[in-house]
């Protein structure tokens, strides 16, 4: 056997064809179709020998090559000016393919980020250098619930968190909180509970607040981790009745 048993893996039929053209050092504009077809088929045979599954794309190209080869064998057909060279059918895609192979090569030679060149990465250090107006601390749900628990403990020490028949609806409390925010602009977290008398009322108020937060109607802020939690409205209608300043 003439084949060197070194099986290269080709991306597809075009890749294999281009390899054969380069190996034989032939002109892509004048492909010796018989030779190339034989070698192409030989390669497919080799793949089968090695039990490599030959993809359908390779077989389609094989039949195209055989078809071109038979056309070329018809006397005079390829010298006829009016008829296109049958090899054009594979020449065009090959040229296009070569073009992109070359561009891929050009791409890989560029200064690629995180391979050849490196940029700065995120650095959180700026925070300790900054004094004064620290942006508001976003509180998470856990902190909020924790704060709620503290209030319950403070106001009703030893109270058991049992749920009683509902006297207050979440909707009522929601409206109450909104009304207060509209009136005052911003309120402290504990203020919304100032009139609550029972644990269940607390819970309903708290659920109402959560709902408002979920709906994006209220923002919860905590200036410092020990500071009082503040609620500010973020509804579309801004307060309303002419607060001149």
């Amino acid at each position, binding site marked *: 056997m003439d084949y060197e048993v070194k099986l290269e893996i080709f*991306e*597809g*039929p*075009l*890749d294999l064809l281009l390899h054969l053209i380069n190996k034989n050092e032939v002109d892509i*504009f004048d492909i010796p179709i018989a030779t190339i077809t034989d070698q192409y088929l030989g390669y497919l045979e080799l793949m089968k020998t090695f039990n490599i599954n030959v*993809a359908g*794309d390779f077989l389609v*190209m094989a039949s195209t090559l055989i078809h071109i080869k038979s056309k070329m064998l018809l006397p005079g057909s390829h010298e006829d000016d009016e008829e296109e060279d049958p090899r054009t059918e594979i*020449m*065009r*895609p090959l*040229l*296009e*393919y*070569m*073009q*992109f*192979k*070359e*561009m*891929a*090569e*050009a*791409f*890989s030679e*560029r*200064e*690629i*980020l*995180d*391979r*050849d*060149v*490196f*940029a*700065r*990465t*995120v*650095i959180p250090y*700026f925070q300790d250098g900054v004094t004064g107006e620290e942006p508001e601390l976003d509180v998470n749900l856990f902190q909020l619930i924790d704060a709620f628990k503290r209030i319950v403990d403070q106001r009703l020490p030893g109270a058991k968190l049992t749920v009683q028949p509902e006297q207050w609806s979440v909707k009522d409390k929601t409206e109450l909180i909104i009304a207060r925010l509209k009136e005052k602009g911003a309120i402290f977290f504990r203020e919304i509970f100032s009139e609550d008398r029972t644990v269940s009322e607390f819970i309903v108020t708290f659920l109402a607040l959560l709902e408002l937060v979920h709906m994006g109607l209220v923002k919860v802020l905590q200036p410092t981790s020990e500071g009082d939690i503040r609620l500010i409205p973020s509804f579309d209608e801004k307060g309303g009745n002419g607060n001149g300043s």
Partner: protein
Amino acid sequence: MDHNSMSKSLKLIIEALLFASDRPLNVREIHACLPDETGSKITQALNELQTEYDGLKRSFVLREVAQGFQLRTRSEYAPYVLRMLKTSPTRLSRAALETLAIIAYKQPILRQEIERLRGVDVGGILRTLLEKDLVRIMGRKNLPGRPLIYGTTKKFLAVFDLKDLGSLPKLKEIREFGSDEEETVPISEHDLRNDTSKEENATGEKTQTTLLPKTD
């Protein structure tokens, strides 16, 4: 004199911004931090910084990428930096690079067109490119099955050190009936954009989503 020190401090402010940013900053973004300066003064300062770094022969330079400016280490330091980061460099297979090249030059493009050009299925590769945020889905084509249209991302420009699509290396035209392979066809960004609008795909040219594979 006063003017001089003014512009010097502008340069230094811009330097600080670039230094503290992990992404390329464009003139508009810098301007947003410096509303008192004019855009043209910022551009000038950026250009001066660029020349300055080249002159200073430091280990980093100011590059214009992805329609913005970014400080980047010089390539000669890559081996050391890679050792420090303990990561393997960005790597793309040959197949992925070829597919990326096709998408970059032919966008907006359908998967079936890519497959016609490459002669093979590109599903797996497309997935990789989408995951790496080098390629994005631009929309759907009004064809049976409403196939997805692909294009490149802003990150593609950043990774491959490209200012914009217009600065893609010229596609080499291989003449069908000649041996002159030097001929080039300029593909301007304009042409690419026009193609986009032809597709009625006015989704905007900016990539909005970036999936950063974080290195540990």
